[in-house]
């Protein structure tokens, strides 16, 4: 994971609320495809030391040279982004808010647990909480979905959420998470939640736009592999913009309060 994390730092900048998140910029657009390939191709990720804790570390000096070089480039880029992306005065101090210039979700093609298309059209016009994980995930995914269940219950009295809110679990393990599995899994938390997945290409379209990373890693578990993944909760506004990122550890009250504040702020901008 050394190399990916190194470059994650490059992609970071300080959001209005003081949290780090991805920044939309030409530099990010330039770096992101490389990141995506490394994160999605387990062989390449392993070669680059991504599976640090599960596999023996590589001692290839050239690899470290490349990582060092990229690190230096990344550091320079990060400094540039941090300087360039400082929030202007007047932006409210809301934890997790990504403003100005929130990343946009473009076209993508996934399927929900009923086999219906889930694409940009299902994002536009809605306030969407997105969480990326997999059903074999023992700890973070059930914990986060239980938190989102609490968030959903709290927001049921909010007219905006009631009319246009949705919770979406995106499985980054299409190999094991078929439609039937996803349907049963998500219904355990809340049948109204959506569970979606798709081909690698479809997942790349969405995860690439949001800066989500995931990678298969070999484990000693009997089912063979686990998946390292971004565990933040993403909030998209009705225009398909990533307007907030809620990092671990997730707190339902903070997310509910954040939604109210962000909703008011975004409405005031339109």
């Amino acid at each position, binding site marked *: 994971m050394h190399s990916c994390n190194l470059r994650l730092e490059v992609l970071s900048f300080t959001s209005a609320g003081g949290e780090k998140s991805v920044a939309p910029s030409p530099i990010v657009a330039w770096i992101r495809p490389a990141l995506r390939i490394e994160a999605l191709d387990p062989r390449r990720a392993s070669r680059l030391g991504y599976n640090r*804790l599960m596999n023996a570390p590589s001692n290839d000096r050239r690899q470290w040279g490349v990582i060092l070089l990229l690190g230096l480039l990344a550091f320079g880029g990060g400094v540039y982004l941090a300087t360039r992306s400082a929030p202007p005065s007047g932006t409210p101090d809301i934890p997790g808010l990504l403003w100005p210039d929130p990343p946009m979700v473009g076209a993508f093609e996934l399927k929900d647990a009923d086999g219906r298309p889930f694409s940009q059209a299902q994002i536009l016009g809605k306030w969407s909480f997105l969480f990326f994980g997999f*059903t074999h995930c023992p700890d973070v995914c*059930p914990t986060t*979905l239980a938190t989102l269940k609490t968030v959903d219950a709290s927001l049921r009295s909010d007219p905006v959420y009631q009319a246009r809110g949705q919770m979406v679990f995106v499985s980054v393990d299409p190999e094991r998470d078929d439609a039937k599995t996803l349907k049963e899994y998500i219904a355990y938390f809340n049948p109204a939640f959506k569970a979606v997945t798709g081909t690698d290409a479809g997942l790349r379209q969405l995860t690439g736009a949001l800066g989500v990373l995931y990678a298969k890693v070999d*484990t000693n578990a009997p089912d063979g592999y686990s998946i*390292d993944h971004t565990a933040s909760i993403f909030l998209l506004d009705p225009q398909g913009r990533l307007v907030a*990122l809620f990092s*671990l550890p997730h707190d339902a009250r903070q997310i509910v309060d954040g939604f109210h504040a962000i909703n008011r702020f975004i409405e005031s901008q339109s």
Partner: protein
Amino acid sequence: MKIPIISAVLLTVAVAAHATDDCNGLKVDDAWVREPPPPGKVAAGFMRISNRTTHQIHIEAIDSDCCAHTMVHRTVREGEQTHMEHLDVLTVPAGGTTTLEPGGLHLMLMGAKAPLAAGQSVNLRFSCGEDHYAFAAAVKREP
């Protein structure tokens, strides 16, 4: 001069052997297993493990009566990423407590013989060398 050195070496060996060969002094509180959502392939277990002795206790293996495989993992957060780290040995510090909790250290229970459901109880056993410590954990559904 040789006698004190030999004594020190023997004492060190004795203490080390004592630290790894028995579970005496272990105490487990508030053990519970999260009811796994379907497909129920893996469940996570949590607890507070106290060590009432003056030496470390090394838990080298864990068995359960519910599942084919039981091991200790740690959820590690690096930036916005998370990954799982496998622990071969769980060490409980002298006079201290090791807590297994959501988002951190946890038991991984895999290969359930039958679906785990809230209200059931799982029997677990720690192995410290040849010695064992047995206890039960309640299966609970999170609210």
